[in-house]
Each structure stands twice: as C-alpha cells, then as structure tokens.
C-alpha cells in the first residue's frame, strides 16, 4: 500500500487520481450542504434564550473548526515537504492557506455578528477571539512570506517553517476557553465526553461540519490540480492529453 501511496504523490498520478475523485467529492459536498442547511435553518428547534439567532452556530462553529483543521493540514504538509522534499506536499500546503484564511475570517465575522445580540458587543479581547485573530494574521503572514520570496523552492521552505512555528497557536485557541475566563462559552462537544448539546441541535451541526470538511477537500483538490497543471504544463503527460485535461 505504501508503494501505491508513494506513486500517487507524483504530479501525474495525483492529477489523474484526483480527477476521478473530484466529481464525487463535489456531489457529496453539495448533498451534505443541502441537507445540512435545511436541517439547520428549518428543522432544528429554536433556542430557549437566543431564539433563532443561535442558528448562526451552524456556520460559525464549522468555520472555526475548519480554520484550525486547515492550519494543521497546512503545517503538516509543510513539514512533510521540509523533511521528504516532496513537491506535492508543497502545493497542498500553499493552497491550504487562502482557504484557511477564509474560514478564519468567517469564524470571526459570524462570531461577531452572533455576539452582538447575544453578548451585547461585536468584539471582546478575550483569549479565544484574540488567538483566533492571531490565526488570521498567521495565515496572512504565510501568504505574504510565500509571495515575497522569489525563488519558489526557498519560498515554500520558508513558509513551511513559519507554519510550523505558528502551530503553538492551535492548542492555545482550542484550550483558551478552559484556561482563561472568556466571554466565549466553553466546549460543549468533546471526542471523549460526547456532547452537552441536545441531539436535535447536535446532529445538524455534525452534518454541516462534515459538509464543510468535504467542501475543503473539494476546493483544495481543485486548486492543487490547477497548480500541478501550471507547473507541469510543459511536461509530456500534460502535452499528450489535449482532450482530457
């Protein structure tokens, strides 16, 4: 199996493999979003205190989860690139950055919009919001550093180092609600202890979170494939495939 996976990391094989995978990912993403959105906006009951405004949760929480997940993927991919010098991991890491930045931005903005009626303020400098804002800066810094260095190979390695250095922020964001007194509520969902949310609210969240994950995979693959095409455009395997690119 390892040999198969290793072969898959060549640009040509990855492009062809992902090309077959992509339509399925897209369809699953679409279905999950349709189901998830209907469930979140229509079926899920209203919250006792927040009434309908709590429905923002169904985009805010998945966006926030994804902002962390994408960063971990980005840093891991960068580390793989630094250690084993695979080209594919470099391309994956670079394309994670803009997607992760969008998720972080959405988490912050939807959080602020939700916070306004719920807490009475758009923003507060507590540990979780501040560390999530730092995450946005880290994504932007990653993209700026990468575009500032002209040599592509050096740029990729420098950005990978930056991504790994910024990894310290991820546990800070995640545990900030436990370690400090924050305005943000503490975690209601954990892998080991289950959920303290009512199932009628928990399941649509789960569907939306899965939809976001598949969405991330779809967009990441689309962007990665484009980068592969662009880099290998003069290679034989591209030049021979006029029809089925």
């Amino acid at each position, binding site marked *: 199996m390892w040999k198969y996976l290793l072969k898959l990391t060549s640009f040509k094989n990855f492009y062809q493999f992902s090309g077959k995978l992509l339509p399925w990912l897209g369809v699953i993403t679409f279905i999950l979003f349709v189901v998830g959105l209907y469930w979140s906006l229509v079926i899920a009951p209203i919250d006792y205190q927040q009434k309908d405004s709590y429905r923002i949760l169904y985009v805010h929480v998945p966006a926030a989860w994804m902002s962390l997940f994408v960063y971990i993927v980005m840093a891991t991919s960068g580390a793989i690139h*630094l250690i084993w010098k695979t080209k594919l991991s470099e391309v994956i890491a670079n394309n994670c950055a803009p997607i992760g930045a969008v998720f972080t931005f959405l988490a912050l903005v939807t959080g602020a919009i939700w916070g306004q009626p719920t807490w009475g303020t758009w923003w507060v400098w507590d540990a979780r919001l*501040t560390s999530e804002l*730092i995450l946005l*800066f*880290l994504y*932007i*810094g990653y993209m*700026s*550093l990468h575009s*500032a*260095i002209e040599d592509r190979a*050096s740029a990729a*390695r*420098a950005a990978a*180092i*930056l991504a*790994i*250095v*910024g990894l*310290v*922020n991820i546990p*800070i964001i995640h545990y900030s609600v436990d370690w400090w007194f924050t305005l943000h509520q503490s975690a209601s969902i954990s892998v080991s202890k289950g959920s303290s949310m009512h199932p009628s609210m928990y399941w649509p969240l789960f569907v939306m979170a899965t939809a976001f994950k598949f969405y991330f995979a779809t967009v990441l693959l689309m962007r990665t494939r484009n980068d592969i095409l662009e880099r290998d455009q003069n290679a034989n395997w591209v030049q021979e495939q006029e029809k089925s690119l």
Partner: protein
Amino acid sequence: MINNSLHAFTSIVRRDLKLAMRNRSEWTNPLFFFFLACSLFPLGIGPGRDTLELIAPGIIWVTALLAAMLSLESIFRSDFEDGNLEQLMLSPHPFTILVYAKVLVHWLVTGIPLMLLSPLLGLILHMPADGILLLMFSLLLGTPVLSLIGSIGAALTVGLKRGGMLLSLLILPLYIPILIFGTGAVDVGLGGLDASGHFLLMGAILIMALTLAPLAAAAALRVSI
C-alpha cells in the same frame, strides 16, 4: 569538540558585541525610539495623571516591543550581506549554537538597555514604584523572548530586499501572547494581587523560546541563504 563550539560561541558573542559598540547608533537608536514613542502618548492623550498611570504598563511594553522589533534586522543582515553568515553556516560548529550567540548579543544590546531605561519612562508616566519594579522584571523575562521569536522572523526575511514590513507582519502576531502576559503581570501586581502566576507563565514561554526558537531561526537561515 564541545570546547571548540563553546569557544566559537563566545568568540561570536565577543565579536558581535564589539561591532555593536563600534556602531553606536545600532543600540542607541532603539532607546531613543523607545523614549520618544512613549512620550508621544502623554502628548496625544493628555497629561492627566490618572489615565497615564492606568495605561502606563501597556504603553511602555508596546513601545519596548516595537523598539525591539525595529532593531531585529541588525541580527543577521550585515553578516548576510558580506557573506559571513554563509561562512558560519559552513563551519563545523552547530549552526544553532552560532545563532544563539547572535540572538544573545541582540538581547544584551537591545533588550537589557530597554529594561534599564523603563524606570525612567515609568516615572514620567506616573507609575508607582512597585509597579516600576514589576515592569522591569516583566521586561527582564519578556525581552529575551522578543529577541528569540524575533530572530525567527529576521531569519525568514533576511534575504529580502525590503523585508522590514513583512518582518513586522510575521512577528507581531507571535509577540501578542508575551505582551499580554507582560502587561498582565504588572496590572495584576498593581491591583494588589499576586503576579507570580503571570511571571511563571512568562518563564515557561521563555524556556520554550530558548529551546525551540534558535532551531527555527537556523532552519530559516538555511533556506534564505
């Protein structure tokens, strides 16, 4: 072999200190900036004693942080430009140790003077005496972290022609935690509570930075050269 590397470490420290002493503006400019920038606040906000006393720890910490950040370029740039850095990288000594040496000198030449000047600024911002002591101690723990984390950013951008702004963009998010704890320690102590928790956390951050930052900086330098 260990003796050799220790000798290399000390000789780099000695050399960089000598260079810094000769180039006087390299270590006096951050101090002037520190003083000037701090002075802008009473001029801009108004000299009201109570307000200044309240925000003094924050002002002093932020301007110290900015002053340290502005001087970060000096860690690697001149050695990068004349090829010395490459020679150090090729030498048989562990590159990380040599990076340590340069970061140590940066702290000695920037961080310590900032810490020593802070009481004066605390005075003109009407801070109470025990607040000033807390401030100095927080800067003592904090400025090495600023130099260490800053060296990573300096290493990442040393090859760029106009990397100054990018350096700030990369470093400031990573500076935020130490800033929060540094000022938090002073505020908590001034409020009559025990600040040792904050100081312990700052110590932990310092230890983490001491062990990990030079590794990252050395790796980044290898990429940039």
